[in-house]
């Protein structure tokens, strides 16, 4: 084990709630995930944006109080952008993403079980290609672990203010569209 037992148990508890929430949010359904990309079901966007704003405001507040430190992944722009493009293709084909796929498999969706097997196989393939990728694509346009406030000089509270307002306006618009 790479973590002490208390942290291992915390992981299990955190995951239990995460899985519970994902299932209650219905993002464990093929029709909800693919429906988002066909713009006929906005559950994924609503869930993600709300989580980002609520989570972000809290994490930045906790950080200001000295209770949390950020864990920012490096902005390897080429690798992240290409990775995101590849990921989108896989997500539509599978109909789940890694977290929701695991949850959907637990719910009993057989296709999600095959999807998770595919993820294991893909991980093994990636491990073989890692030497090549880490020496090439992952080095291109690597800005390091940088955040938007650091990059732009705009304070985080202002970014969250704008992001929160934009999300609420977008949600109101979507709700209006969905009532039609």
């Amino acid at each position, binding site marked *: 084990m790479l973590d002490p037992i208390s942290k291992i148990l915390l992981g299990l508890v955190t*995951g239990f709630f995460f899985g519970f929430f994902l299932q209650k949010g219905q993002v464990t359904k093929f029709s909800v995930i693919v429906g988002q*990309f066909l713009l006929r079901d906005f559950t994924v966007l609503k869930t993600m944006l709300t989580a980002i704003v609520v989570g972000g405001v809290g994490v930045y507040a906790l950080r200001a109080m000295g209770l949390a430190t950020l864990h920012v992944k490096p902005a390897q722009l080429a690798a992240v952008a290409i990775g995101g493009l590849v990921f989108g293709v896989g997500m539509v084909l599978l109909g789940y993403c890694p977290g929701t796929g695991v949850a959907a498999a637990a719910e009993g969706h057989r296709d999600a079980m095959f999807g998770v097997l595919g993820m294991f196989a893909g991980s093994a393939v990636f491990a073989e290609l890692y030497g090549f990728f880490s020496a090439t694509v992952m080095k291109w346009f690597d800005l390091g672990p940088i955040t938007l406030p650091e990059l732009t000089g705009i304070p985080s509270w202002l970014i969250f203010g704008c992001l929160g307002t934009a999300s609420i306006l977008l949600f109101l618009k979507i709700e209006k569209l969905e009532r039609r």
Partner: protein
Amino acid sequence: MNFLKHQRWSPYLVGSLIGILSWFAFVTADRAIGVSTALARTAGMAELTVAPVHVQTNPYFLRFRPAVDWEWMLVLGIVLGAFVSSRLSGDKPQTDVPPLWRSRFGPSARKRYAGAFAGGMILILGARLAGGCTSGNGISGSLQLALSGWVFFGSLFVSGLATAFLIYGKENSRA
């Protein structure tokens, strides 16, 4: 406790709860929620049983050791949590082949499973290249206002929209 038996909670409620769960992860474990690294570690564990030397010298598995950590337990927790939630509400899969898939690729379950397997492979290659998936990059990265998180979020949506419209066409959309 009736709400626990409801099949669907509002996405705004669920999003808020996931956000609050993030606070919990940062404060209690000093970690951000993520999933795909744990899947890669699991692949390494499986490989260890057949080719131990190969895994022990692989640069990827040297960096992400095939062993249980906080995130690996989180993924195990997802299995339990999603199972309990779905059983509480009696939310069981209706069919092996989703109707939308059926309308495009026919009723074969085998074909659907093959597509799902391929999709899972492609998906994780993208996630590992980007350094995270919808959870680690899309939610945890974006909520930390990480540039990597927002770039991933953007390219994932562009690609997902293009792929979905190419496969299922405009007739299946309401836009």
